[in-house]
């Protein structure tokens, strides 16, 4: 690993490195030894494709979310894509999703030939249920709410809309493992829920990975075929499938980390509360809504800030790895504009967020000093 030379600013009492990435801490030397020991035991078995540790990981994952089934796939993107495909969505069908999501949500819709229809979000970064219902047309074939940044979409209302219009729901829960409303977890509301296990997610593996959860036996069975070349058994191909299996090697890492997921979640929530308390006292900062009946898991800790771009630079100059998710909303990406004829101004809230939102590190491996440094740096920026 490269050793960073200390910045000249390091001497300043106003400088403290607050890293965005928790990976060096999560995978510290002791963790490396533990994972290595597990891989060392696993590799000789040769059980690499849909092997035993994967089955074990899927069972643990289903139990964690509270669903009957969990199906390991190659990525969160594939978890969405395969879910839609299994629900029979295809060319000509419209799928409604959020205008501010990560590109992968939309990519999954486009990949199967369907058309994404965007709706604006509310100040909790999740799609506006009223706008969602208004966007339904006879061509609408599925709803795809995104639990962005560890916030929860308004699932009780969305499920009610879905029921009235007889539409299936796929939850993009890639950023929201263990988020819930009234104790019901993200991913367990819709026909299926899609999770990402990418290294930068709250629960991750050592590379790309994803998981689909569902309570629907038939859907689960179909998805298991779909991820494995459509194979019904070794020789018979029932459907045109994909190669999208969660590597069993990655499941070995997942089985190790899943034991820590409560610690990860609880610590992030505690950190968010500290940041909330400190930042809400600053006039130029506005917090997104917090709810008494929702568990938000802060995959990203985001607030709204005046003079956002200057604040961003100021924080970075003072050692805080601050980011924006995302400066260019998905609906304005070149790939989307070509396809959907969307243009700037179509989604007012998303546009406002793109200019004002800012993401601070809040992960489980930060110390109280790190969090304090974020708060004092933001306060000092507005004082100066």
């Amino acid at each position, binding site marked *: 690993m490269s050793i960073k030379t200390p910045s000249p600013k390091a001497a300043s009492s106003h400088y403290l490195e607050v890293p965005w990435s928790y990976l060096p801490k999560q995978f510290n030397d002791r963790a490396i030894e533990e994972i290595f020991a597990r891989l060392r035991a696993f590799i000789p078995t040769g059980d690499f*494709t849909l092997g035993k540790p994967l089955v074990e990981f899927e069972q643990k994952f289903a139990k964690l979310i509270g669903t009957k089934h969990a199906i390991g796939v190659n990525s969160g993107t594939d978890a969405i894509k395969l879910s839609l495909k299994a629900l029979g969505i295809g060319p000509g069908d419209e799928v409604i999703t959020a205008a501010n999501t990560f590109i992968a949500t939309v990519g999954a819709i486009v990949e199967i030939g369907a058309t994404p229809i965007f709706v604006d979000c509310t100040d909790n970064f999740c799609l506006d249920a009223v706008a969602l219902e208004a966007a339904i047309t006879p061509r609408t074939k599925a709803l795809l709410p995104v639990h962005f940044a560890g916030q929860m979409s308004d699932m009780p209302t969305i499920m009610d809309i879905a029921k009235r219009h007889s539409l299936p729901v796929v939850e993009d829960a890639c950023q929201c493992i263990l988020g819930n409303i009234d104790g019901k977890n993200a991913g367990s509301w819709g026909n299926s829920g899609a999770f990402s296990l990418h290294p930068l997610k709250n629960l991750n593996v050592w590379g790309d990975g994803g998981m689909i959860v569902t309570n629907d036996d038939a859907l689960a069975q179909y998805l298991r075929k779909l991820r494995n070349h459509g194979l019904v058994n070794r020789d018979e191909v029932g459907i045109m499938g994909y190669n999208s299996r969660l590597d069993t090697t990655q499941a070995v890492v997942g089985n190790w980390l899943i034991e820590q997921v409560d610690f990860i979640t609880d610590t992030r929530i505690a950190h968010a509360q500290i940041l909330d308390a400190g930042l809400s006292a600053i006039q130029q900062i506005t917090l997104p809504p917090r709810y008494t009946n929702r568990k938000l898991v802060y995959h990203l800790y985001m607030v709204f800030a005046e003079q956002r771009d200057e604040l961003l630079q100021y924080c970075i100059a003072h050692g805080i790895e601050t980011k924006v998710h995302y400066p260019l909303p998905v609906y304005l990406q070149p790939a989307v504009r070509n396809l959907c004829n969307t243009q700037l101004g179509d989604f007012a809230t998303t546009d406002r967020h793109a200019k004002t939102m800012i993401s601070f590190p809040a992960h489980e491996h930060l110390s109280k000093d790190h969090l304090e440094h974020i708060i004092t740096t933001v306060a000092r920026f507005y004082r100066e």
Partner: protein
Amino acid sequence: MQAVSVPYVQVNKQYVEEEPELLEIIRNVLSSRSYVLDSLIDELESELAEFCGTKYAVTLNSGTDALMLGMMAAGISRGDEVITPPNSFVASTTAIVHIGARPVFADVLPDQNIDPAAIESAITPKTKAIMAVHLTGRIAQMDLIQAIADKHGLMVIEDAAQAAGSRYLDKPAGSFGTIGCFSAHPLKNLNACGDSGFLTTNDAAIAQRVRRLRSHGMSDRSTVEEWGFVSRMDTLQAAIVQYRLKQLPTVIQRRREHAKFYQTHLQLPQVFIPACRPQEYNSFHTFVIQSERRDELATYLATQGISTAIHYPIPIHLQPAAKSLGHKPGSFPITEQQAQRILTLPVNQFLSREHQVAVVDAIKAFFAKDA
């Protein structure tokens, strides 16, 4: 005769042979905290390109994805027809279906590879590409296929999933077509410890586009240039593939020796073994014999402790998944006849001479029984 157990695959033996190096490689990846699209990937891609004799190689999540993303990047799309053999693993065909193109099957030769004459008669005004599958590790007759492609202005796609390290006219698999598509699945001659694949090409634009397609279509952290996928080779697998690429020539050499032994000792009237042409250097991903009494023979060999397999008992055009393509039994007679006759013998690099003698003796004993 004393029955010996002859295993079809021996992944465990591969591990025993490689253990010290493999463990060190895994430890290094863990210690370097390298996850996806690291500099290790660049290194491996250069080595793979060099090995395959192409300018570029792009690592991906699977051989299936190499076909899918590669054909997209090469400009094959909805409405186009791609000619392919119906006796491959199903992924060759599903890759065509998933990009919206139509698979058009052409029957095969006695050696199980696509028949150039059948290609010619399958060409229509909609044909965009010929996908040759190098089944069993034997490269299809690329000189003839390229000539047909040139004549009709078509692209050539190599499904080289089973042919890493194979050669034809002294050129490596993956260096013939517009793209070469490889799998490094655990059961391949060049194998990772999980799903992995890669693509080779001499076309800079295709390589660049596949690199974008494998990572959400993104040209940088914030810009989505086009609709993409997630299909990356994990660095953990990449490190293993990098190590095993160095072992591959030895692996192939051992398999070739086993194949040679079978070819020499199984000269029976009841067994057909397609000959190797002088211009072929086959890697023997599988060693397939053909026999009228395949099922009885397989059952008998099993009783003698010899594991065999069939690649593949149901041709793609007769699979339930292919129903909408509208084929019936009889559409591709050679493929269908072979599906009844083919039997894959163990040819893995860890077989002993004793194993091989047992296989040969058992086959001879089977046919001698009622002679």
